[in-house]
């Protein structure tokens, strides 16, 4: 089988976060507009993971192999380490709203109010090398434990995992977009 070498991909992605509902550009040739913030450097790559669970139909007495399956769960995650240890990025990791204050506080109160969901955009190369591929995950929460190491011989990184949540029937959870 022939190989199209220009379809092979390698290289880092740019990670931006935004308010849920942030406007996506009409084409990938246009920069992301208001409502999106580039989180800056990352370390260890950015990984989009799409977990799918299919529950088999069967087997039954008369058929010994599954007759089919139904999709019964989907999980979407974006995982990376934020390399720029700013308070703005700590707020992103803690699902806190954008704030100009020079401190971050964490409360211990229980609440029934929705947390601060975030939209996430990964921007890397698309096959063909002619421009970017954007992955929009439209409603996420950063759900990982946030370890903040202070090391004499290592960088301080904020590990983040953005886990996706349902938006609506018409607005899909994830969009992988190669539009030029």
């Amino acid at each position, binding site marked *: 089988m022939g190989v199209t070498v220009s379809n092979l991909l390698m290289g880092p992605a740019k990670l931006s976060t935004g308010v849920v509902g942030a406007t996506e550009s009409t084409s990938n040739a246009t920069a992301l507009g208001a409502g999106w913030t580039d989180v800056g450097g990352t370390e260890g790559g950015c990984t989009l993971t799409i977990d799918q669970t299919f529950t088999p139909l069967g087997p039954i007495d008369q058929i010994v192999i599954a007759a089919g399956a139904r999709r019964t769960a989907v999980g979407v995650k974006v995982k990376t380490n934020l390399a720029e240890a700013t308070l703005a990025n700590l707020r992103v990791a803690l699902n806190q709203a954008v704030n100009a204050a020079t401190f971050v506080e964490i409360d211990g109160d229980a609440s029934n109010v929705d*947390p601060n969901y975030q939209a996430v955009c990964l921007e890397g190369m698309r096959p063909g090398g002619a421009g970017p591929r954007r992955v929009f995950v439209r409603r996420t929460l950063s759900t990982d434990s946030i370890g903040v190491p202070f090391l004499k011989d290592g960088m301080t990184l904020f590990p983040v995992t953005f886990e996706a949540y349902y938006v609506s029937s018409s607005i899909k959870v994830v969009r992988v977009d190669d539009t030029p």
Partner: protein
Amino acid sequence: MATTKVRTTIRPLEELEVGPEEYLDLQRLGFLFDTKATTDDGLQTAAEKQTEQRSDTTPAEIEGKV
């Protein structure tokens, strides 16, 4: 079932047809936007402006819970 045509801040150039339940959810999420703009650029700019205003609002405020 009655449906309504809406535009959202996410992809303002696309018109969606939604039922009443989804309409309510999109409204509470702050995704719906109404504009007099008719051009593609105008729609995009209006949506970004609304998004920018929402960036200064807490999620609870958006959903009318505080």
